[in-house]
């Protein structure tokens, strides 16, 4: 493919990609298996899809997970963008180190610790001020926003550092108020990063099992909680069907997002190139 890449590197890449994709491809293939025993092939069939569509608890879990994911992504993008702006554009401020640490820590903190500490915190809070009255939707959403905002902040910080500040400075020179500069220049240029952050926060929330299991209450089953309780006892063909739908959904979303961002980036580069030529 490329003469810069040695044969060894090409082989490693191929083997690595096979390693990454074969398990998922098999998962998809077995969802169309007629047999009740997942790895025993019994001919092509879509019966597990109809089994899946008929089970009501799956639908309510999907609905709850989507609701949490959308609210989480929106708040996390908002908070994460603010945090990213503060870290990159505000220079030094008091307690910046503590702020920075709290922004990085959720990225690497084992979920089990975050989950346990949040649950204990919610229960203590209830003893203290009587809120949250019951665990479930609200507590899961809060927990998800807390770690998602850190991921959004990383994306925003990376974008802000890559962005030159000339446009903002020019606007300030021409008399624009700082707030106007933020809304008219900085935020629109940050938009692709915010979209990426929103999508990341959305999928992180849909994906989370451990933290949600800790902070949920009776009756509030998110999709991962439901899947986990079923597969703990072994393989289930209807879960293969569900997995196939989820994998295809995510793949299509990511592909569209990548395409949009790629186009927008190119258009922006073009705009900047034209502007630069007109200036000179």
């Amino acid at each position, binding site marked *: 493919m490329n003469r810069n890449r040695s044969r060894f590197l090409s082989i490693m890449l191929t083997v690595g990609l096979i390693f990454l994709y074969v398990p998922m491809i098999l998962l998809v293939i077995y969802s169309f298996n007629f047999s009740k025993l997942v790895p025993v092939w019994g001919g092509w069939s879509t019966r597990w899809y109809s089994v899946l569509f008929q089970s009501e608890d799956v639908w309510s879990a999907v609905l709850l997970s989507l609701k949490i994911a959308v609210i989480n992504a929106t708040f996390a993008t908002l908070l994460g963008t603010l945090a990213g702006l503060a870290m990159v554009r505000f220079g030094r401020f008091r307690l910046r180190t503590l702020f920075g640490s709290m922004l*990085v820590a959720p990225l*690497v903190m084992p979920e089990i610790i975050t989950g346990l500490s949040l649950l204990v915190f919610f229960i203590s809070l209830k*003893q203290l001020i009587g809120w949250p009255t019951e665990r479930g939707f609200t507590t899961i959403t809060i927990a998800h926003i807390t770690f998602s905002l850190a991921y959004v902040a990383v994306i925003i910080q990376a974008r802000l550092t890559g962005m030159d500040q000339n446009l903002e400075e020019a606007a300030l020179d021409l008399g624009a108020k700082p707030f106007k500069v933020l809304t008219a220049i900085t935020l629109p240029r940050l938009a692709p990063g915010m979209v990426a952050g929103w999508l990341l926060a959305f999928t992180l929330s849909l994906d989370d099992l451990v933290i949600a299991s800790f902070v949920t209450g009776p009756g509030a089953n998110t999709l991962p909680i439901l899947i986990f309780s079923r597969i703990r006892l072994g393989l289930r063909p209807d879960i293969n069907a569900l*997995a196939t739908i989820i*994998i295809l959904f995510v*793949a299509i979303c990511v592909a569209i997002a990548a395409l949009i961002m790629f186009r927008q980036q190119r258009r922006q580069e073009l705009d900047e190139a034209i502007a630069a030529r007109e200036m000179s």
Partner: protein
Amino acid sequence: MTVVNHSDERANHFSNALLDVLRRVQSGWRTIVILVPFAWLLIFFLAPFIVIAKISLAEVVIASPPFTRMIEWTDNGIMTIRIVFDNFLYIFDDDLYSRTYVNSLKVSIISTFFCLLIGYPMAYGIIRSGPLAKKMLLFAIILPFWTSFLLRVYAWMGLLADQGTINNILIWLGIIDDPVRMLYTEFAVYIGIIYTYLPFMILPLYANMEKLDQTLNEAAADLGSQPTNTFFKITLPLTVPGIIAGSLLVFIPATGEYIVPDLLGGGNVQMIGRLLYNEFSRNVDWPVASAVAIVLLFLLVLPMAIYQYYQGKAAEQ
């Protein structure tokens, strides 16, 4: 040149008084921008840690909440503070906990090593690809990262089971007669962790390698250095920050991993994440569970600090 002109112009444009007003207006909304996410993290990230630290120093009682209070007011208005280190002593005394901690670290370190071994050449291969291939490959690495962690682990249950795909293929090929037990072994846990965490290794490595100056390699080649020699003397040392970032991004969460040891290890592989979860959900011993979490946090605080240091340095560049 332009930079100097620019700042000169700027000084001319604004009088000092105007700048002052500007600064004051700016600091108003600046405070809000900082304060909102800061307050959120203080309340929902830092405060919970303080709470578990407090509970880890309490005693278990049959009540709601099931632990003693640290500060209590008696009827006479006397405040008593009780701090109990029993939970920590219990963890250190009990062989089960120390063995589980050591085993978690072992599994995590070995998995990290294999992720690096597989991930490094993959990241380097992506760097060395053409512009379009690079984009496609990067997309291929990121895609599994976006799909469900739980389902990716589940996929391996189907591969490794006694009646699973791998055993079926091996029997069909005549290599083995009876299925080899792979699911619910330590081997399965290694596979699961390496598989799910591989993208976390590749992406920081890629980000680091992308900044490398490829002309260094050409210069070395012009001066007669063999490719292998160039790699070990130039490329490898320059990618150390990427290696450290990627390794920590795998090592830290893998140490506390719950899903992989539970689904692929069954009860046969003891890891601290699983022990903690069970301690908590079955025994409802909150003080001990909190103490287990605090000890785990202590084990990981140094790697986390190192990771943060490298993150900060990468951001400055």
